[in-house]
């Protein structure tokens, strides 16, 4: 192959390398701009749009049979457990702890945290070992009580 063609191809190669660098930098910028934290402060990103606090999400009980259809609204934070102070009281659920878990919002995310319950909290069948993000349609289980997430 003639050397001139090779030189040309060398520049093509270098151009591709720099194109790769450019793409990576663009991704880095995107990663940096991504919201690391939920927007703090009152009213979220736009302080002028003040709304009455409305339910951010709803937990709907799907088991046991006796309580199917019960709903608990979540505005900021609720606790779930056998204890009387909980927003969702798990009466007669002997596998649930007194204060079993809390479900709360952080920015746009709905989260569930197991409060060191004896038998654990499950999200979609998997026992959680840390605070876990919930999406619509997720199924949470505390003791023998199962709820659907609606938002």
């Amino acid at each position, binding site marked *: *192959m003639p*050397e001139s063609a*090779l*030189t040309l*191809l*060398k*520049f*093509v*190669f*270098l151009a*591709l*390398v*720099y194109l*790769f*660098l450019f*793409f*990576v*930098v663009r*991704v*880095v910028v995107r*990663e*940096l701009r*991504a919201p*690391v*934290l*939920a*927007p*703090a*402060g*009152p*009213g*979220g990103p736009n302080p002028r749009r003040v709304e009455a*606090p409305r339910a951010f999400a709803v937990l709907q009980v799907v088991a046991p049979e006796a309580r199917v259809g019960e709903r608990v609204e979540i505005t*900021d*934070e609720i606790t779930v457990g056998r204890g009387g102070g909980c927003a969702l009281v798990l009466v007669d659920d002997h*596998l649930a702890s007194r204060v079993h878990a809390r479900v*709360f*919002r*952080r*920015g746009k995310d709905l*989260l569930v945290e197991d409060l060191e319950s*004896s*038998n*654990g909290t*499950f999200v*979609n*069948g998997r*026992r959680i070992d*840390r*605070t*876990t*993000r919930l*999406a619509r*349609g*997720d*199924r949470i*289980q505390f*003791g*023998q009580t*199962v709820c659907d997430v609606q938002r």
Partner: protein
Amino acid sequence: MVVAPSPVVSDATADAPSPTRIRVPRRRATTRRRRTELLLGVFALVTTTFGYALVQLADAPDLPPDLWAILAGVIGLFVVAHLAVRWLAPDADPTLLPLAAFLTGFGFLVVARLDEDLARVQAVWAAVGVVAFVVTLAVVRRIRTLERYRYTFLLLGVLALVLPLFPGLGAEINGARLWVRLGPLNFQPGEAAKVLLVIFFAAYLVDKREMLSTGTRWVGRVALPDPKYLGPLLLAWGASLLIMVRQKDLGSSLLFFAVFAAMLYIATDRGSYLLIGFGLFAGGAVIAYQLFDHVQTRVSTWIDPWPVAQDEGFQLVQSMFAFGSGGFAGAGLGLGNPTTIPNVATDFVFSAVGEELGLVGGIAVVAVVLLLCGSGYRIAVQAARPFPKLFAAGLTTIIGVQTFVIIGGVTRVIPLTGVTLPFVSYGGSSLVANFVILALLLRISDDNARVRVAGPAGAATSGAPPMTTSPPSATAPPARPR
């Protein structure tokens, strides 16, 4: 302190009814990250394979017959790693893996240009590296597990350092006794020691950083921390340096020193540690200079290589000729003459890049390493808990300092000490170790994406100044006006 895991009563868990499983759609940001990673990686590897074709075209009129096999091979390896990330760390940073893939592919093309046989071995090592990458991601499911076994890792790290000194096991290659020979396999356990000791240092510093950042003994105007807490550090530090000096591996000594000083500084936010570290280093360097002939030779060849251009200075002089003849845009892949430099595929790989791709190519390599380190430090900054934060910073510092030491060495900015250029140089142990570092960084990054949402739920977030940059507590939701 690490909180002991809450004991799980097994029979009680068995009693729990098995809940129904539902498929949940992946989050959009997650899938976008992984798609970006795949696209960037494939682009990087197509580019480096194109470079490989150029190398072959310089000799032969036709494209090499194995070109498509090589392209399929490298992309296949990358896809394996990518799928492992999808499966095991789906929320991890999307830039790390493609950047490492680029450096590995680029290293393969440069090594292939220098020595076909070495390139074949390097390709096998890259495959081993990817396996190590997947295994690390699969085994280390939670980074805090590593924190718990800190002293085990210290033991293993020191063991790895002294392993080559055992007679019958160790082997001396190129005047440095850092190799262990097991049947047909030669490897450098020191590469593993780097990672192991950084785990220990991160865990130890997180534990003791409050004691280390508040000085109790005054020396002039500088408050020094209690020697009780500083002692173990100095001991580990000194021991690793001593071992490496005995093995005549100056590059690694320098690397350890810099990484530990940086971690001490990051953990305590006290600039005085940088000064102390620099002072210790200067003292150590002077002592080493007086005691060891090979250190004196290194320094004198660095200051003036020309009188010994045919002996000790040969490598360095040839390296400078390589950069000189490379000029701005280089001689072209396969068109230079970099094979005159001894050890060009390992320590002097950057000189080969400089000769054939010039300043433009050299800057590109440095830029890729910088972006890699940038992503690593970003992961450290985003980590909410102190141990992953310090660990990520330490791992990234290994790659950064190593790159500086070897590129600085071959360009005669600092005295030459042999370490590998991460991912690029020929060298199996180093490549595998770097893939493990990569996997650990991705693991921390994936944890960040979850922990970031969860907030400082861990036990260890309270404390010293630089670590308290964690997000606001989950228990204080933003107040909403009514």
